[in-house]
Structure formats: structure tokens, C-alpha cells
């Protein structure tokens, strides 16, 4: 508190000791987060990790129980009022009876120095949909309109919550190309996702959230390596779990009936050892672990998510 007067930073986002509870549930539990100008940061975590709640507090849509939030050096509500923030929320709605162009033009008109509407549509890849009524759009196309609304303010900070939900693979790729175009022009981007690949490919930095806390924060490559867990599955009716768990590269061994599942930090080594030491094992299967497993590997906790 005493440092408030001297911390005149130009950070796009500066959050400290942020906390928010809903009844008995602590959704955000002491989050510290900084986004530097021009930085692209992924807020990565499973559903219920507190990503959305954090973003809503950043945008002034809900108020923290405690902690401080500064966006572009301002109070969140003031930052949004200043027009410096572009945001895309999952819960964002559109007016069915307007065209795409009218919608973007309407929001552009609320800002002091917006991008040309055509440019925003182009960035969102919907230049050809300008005259289409919102009610005729697919889910993925609606997402792109929401993205156009987030960029048309020409914001210093873009905050995007699960931006690629409902997008097909093609659209998703185009979306990230557009997002990088944004970031290259010096804007900061903070996006929430529960896809590790997306965070890894698109962010300079990954902030990993679980159960309302930040459990890791660092360059994408570092986080990716830390959470890049794989699972080896095999049919092995008789096999001692303790021995399996002690194989090289294996961090956890579990059994469901005749199937054993090995959670691995080095799947290659684990597989080799498994083939050598367990002649009875068959039906091998190696796959990337999902994010929840990654959290287990990283936090060592048993996923007490809220």
C-alpha cells in the first residue's frame, strides 16, 4: 500500500494480491499478474481455475474482495471508459437484427479513435460478411464478430476470454494470425484458454492458473516443457504398480482392471523400460496428457479444483 505513490508503471496490466470469493468458493485466491506493453500473455488453466473471474475484475465487470487492479495505469472501470481496452467475453452477446457492419460501426462510434470499420472486419476475417444479419451467422462467425468488436477500439490492451471456442480449425488458425498482427503493432494481449497448444504457440508468456492461484509464470517454452506430460497405457493383467512407478521416466502408475496407465515425464524412456521389463504387456498407447494431468505433474496436488 505504501508503494502506491511511486509505482507509476506503464504496464498494461498490474494486479496484486487479487482475491474474490463467491459464497464459500474462493474463485481467485491471491493473484499477482503483470502484463508489459506489447506483451502477449496466455492465462492457462482448466475450467474453474479462476481465469474468467480474474478477467472480469480486470475489465471492471466485477469488483475484487481485496487486492489492487490497474489497467493501463488506471482503475479498470476508468480504463474501459477511456476506450483503451478491447475485450472479448464468452458471455458477450450481439443484436440479432443488426448486420455485422452495423454492429462494428456502432461500437466503433463509441470510441474516440477507433480503427476503420473495414480494417477491424478484415482483421477478424469477416470483411465479406459486413452485410449479413447477425441472426444468420454460425457460432464461429459470431466469435469473429466479437473479435472485431474487441479490436475496433484500437486498444492498448486486448483481453480475450476463450477466444477460439466454437471456431473450427481453419478459423482458429486465421484468428491467431490476426491476433499476432495486433500484437506486432505494440498492443498488449491477455488471453485465457484451456488449450496448452494454443498458449504455447501464441503467447510470449504463459501464466498457469489452478484453483484460483497462479502456479507457474514464465516463457511459453519453459511452461510447456514443465507441463508436457504424456501417458502410456498398456494391457498388463499382472504387474506390480510400485515397480511400474519406479521405471525410468514414470511419475505415476495407475490400474483400471487389466489396463495400467503410466503418467510420464519421459514417455520414450518409460515405454522402452516397460517393453523390456514386462513381457506380458501389450496394446501400447502413448498420448499427450490433458491439462489436468499437466497440473498434477506441476503442482503435485490432487487437483482440488473448485
Amino acid at each position, binding site marked *: 500500500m505504501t508503494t502506491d505513490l511511486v509505482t507509476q508503471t506503464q504496464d498494461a496490466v498490474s494486479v496484486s494480491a487479487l482475491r474474490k470469493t463467491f459464497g464459500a468458493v474462493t474463485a481467485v485466491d491471491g493473484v499477482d499478474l503483470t502484463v508489459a506493453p506489447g506483451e502477449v500473455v496466455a492465462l492457462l488453466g482448466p475450467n474453474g481455475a479462476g481465469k474468467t*473471474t480474474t478477467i*472480469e475484475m480486470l475489465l471492471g*465487470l466485477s469488483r475484487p474482495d481485496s487486492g489492487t487492479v490497474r489497467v493501463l495505469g488506471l482503475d479498470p472501470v476508468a480504463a474501459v471508459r477511456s476506450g483503451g481496452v478491447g475485450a472479448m467475453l464468452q458471455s*458477450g*452477446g450481439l443484436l440479432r437484427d443488426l448486420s455485422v457492419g452495423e454492429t462494428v460501426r456502432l461500437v466503433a*462510434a463509441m470510441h474516440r479513435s477507433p480503427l476503420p470499420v473495414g480494417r477491424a472486419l478484415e482483421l477478424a476475417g469477416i470483411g465479406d460478411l459486413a452485410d449479413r444479419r447477425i441472426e444468420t451467422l454460425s457460432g464461429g462467425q459470431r466469435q469473429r464478430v466479437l473479435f472485431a*468488436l474487441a479490436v475496433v477500439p484500437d486498444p492498448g490492451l486486448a483481453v480475450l476470454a476463450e477466444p477460439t471456442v466454437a471456431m473450427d480449425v481453419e478459423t482458429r488458425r486465421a484468428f491467431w494470425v490476426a491476433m499476432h498482427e495486433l500484437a506486432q503493432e505494440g498492443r498488449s494481449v491477455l488471453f485465457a484458454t484451456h488449450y496448452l497448444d494454443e498458449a504455447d504457440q501464441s503467447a510470449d508468456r504463459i501464466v498457469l492458473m489452478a484453483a484460483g492461484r497462479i502456479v507457474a509464470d514464465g516463457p511459453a517454452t519453459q511452461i510447456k516443457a514443465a507441463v508436457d506430460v504424456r501417458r502410456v497405457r498398456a494391457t498388463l493383467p499382472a504387474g506390480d504398480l510400485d515397480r511400474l512407478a519406479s521405471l525410468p521416466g514414470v511419475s505415476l502408475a495407475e490400474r483400471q482392471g487389466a489396463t495400467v496407465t503410466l503418467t510420464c515425464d519421459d514417455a520414450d524412456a518409460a515405454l522402452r523400460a516397460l517393453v523390456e521389463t514386462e513381457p506380458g504387456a501389450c496394446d501400447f498407447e502413448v498420448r499427450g496428457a490433458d491439462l489436468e494431468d499437466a497440473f498434477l505433474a506441476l503442482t503435485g496436488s490432487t487437483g482440488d479444483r473448485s
Partner: protein
Amino acid sequence: MTFTYLGTELRRSFRNPRYVFFTIGVPVVLFLVIGNAFKGDVFGVSAQTWYMVNMAVFGAIGAVLGVGARIADERDSGWNRQLRLTPLPPLGYVAGKVMTGMLVALPALVLVCLAGRLTGAVQLGATQWAEVIGLGWVAILPMAVVGVGLGYFSSGDNAQAVNGGVIMLMSMFGGIWFPIDATSPDWLRVTAHSLPTYWITQITRAPLTHVWPAAGGWAVLAVWVALGARLAARGYRRDALRAA
């Protein structure tokens, strides 16, 4: 900014068949079909003049409540949340709805009067026409505020039904369908005097009758404005607190 906002809202109205047919069309048709059924004088003007004023007010009320109902729809669809991510202040949003309501009320007023003029059923001087339309338009303002309140009170699903009920009751018991005067039962007079419609129609025909609402009438209008504003403020706060 305001021009784009208002312009977009107006375009939405004229794109909406419900507004074009029911809000503007129905009062004109009612006037043309039923207006001739009334004979003699009502409140010192010809029955047709009395009925024309009432239908003009009826259409204008439908228009402002219809715009208010959009708030319910926009809260449901998440558009309100989208707007909270823009510099548009909440009061600007509400003011925009009131202004839009006022603007789309005008065609409803004018067209019913035009029907009265063109059929020769109502004969007024140019000044009187201007006064009737102008006063009717200003007098509708309390209902525009009530419409915003109802928009925050109802949901997208039931907003049309709520509006329909409100228009029906306020018309029936507010002296729009049939005259409510000294010969009416006490309970009906008391009810009518507590409704904005009664006073709005009285103000609208005042240029012809020279009868203005007493202090009590103005107070009733003020209470309805306060009620609408209170509903709106409560709904807005509820939205602001809603976290999901």
C-alpha cells in the same frame, strides 16, 4: 457517437414488423374503423377528435414501451455486457433508449392525426394540429421512462407480454377505450386518475379543451416517472452485481 447510436436504434425499429404494423398501423386502423362509431361531444370536443387523440397516444405508448422492451432482450442476449466493455456510460445507454422511444413515438402520433385530417373527421387549424402533436409528444415522456423501467423489470421472454398487459390495462382504465368522466363509477374514476394515460390524453387535447391537469395530475405523472426510474436503477444495479 450519439448519432450513430440513435440512428442504429431507429433503423432497428423500422426494420421491426411489430413496430411498423402494430405500433403505427393498428391505432390508425382503429381510428378509421371505430372512430366513426362515436357520436356527439366528449369533454367538449367532437367524439372523433377525442378518439383520434386517444389513438395517437395509444400508438405513442406502444412505441415507447416497445423500445423499453429491447432492454430486456439486450440484457438476456448479453449485449448489455458487451456495451459495458465500451466507453458508453450506463446512463448514456438508458438515455439513448428514452430518446429512441420518443423518436419512434412521433410517427405513431403524426400518422393517427394525419388520418383524422385526411378523412376530414377532425378539422383543426394548423396551430392546433401542431399543439396537439407537440403536447402529445412531450406528455408521452413519462411512459418512455416507465418503458425503460419495465425493460429492466422483465426478461426477454416475457417483455412483450408484460408490455401488452400494461398497455391494455392503462388504456382500459385510463380512459383511452371509453371516456371516464363525472358519470363514471367512483372506483373507475379513482383508478383512472392514478394512471398516466388519463393525464397524458388530457394534456394532449388541452389545446382544444383548455382543460389542464390539476396539481394532482402532474403529481401522478411524476410518481410514474419516479417508479420507472426506480425499476431501472434497481435492474441496473442487479446487472452490475451479477458476476457470471
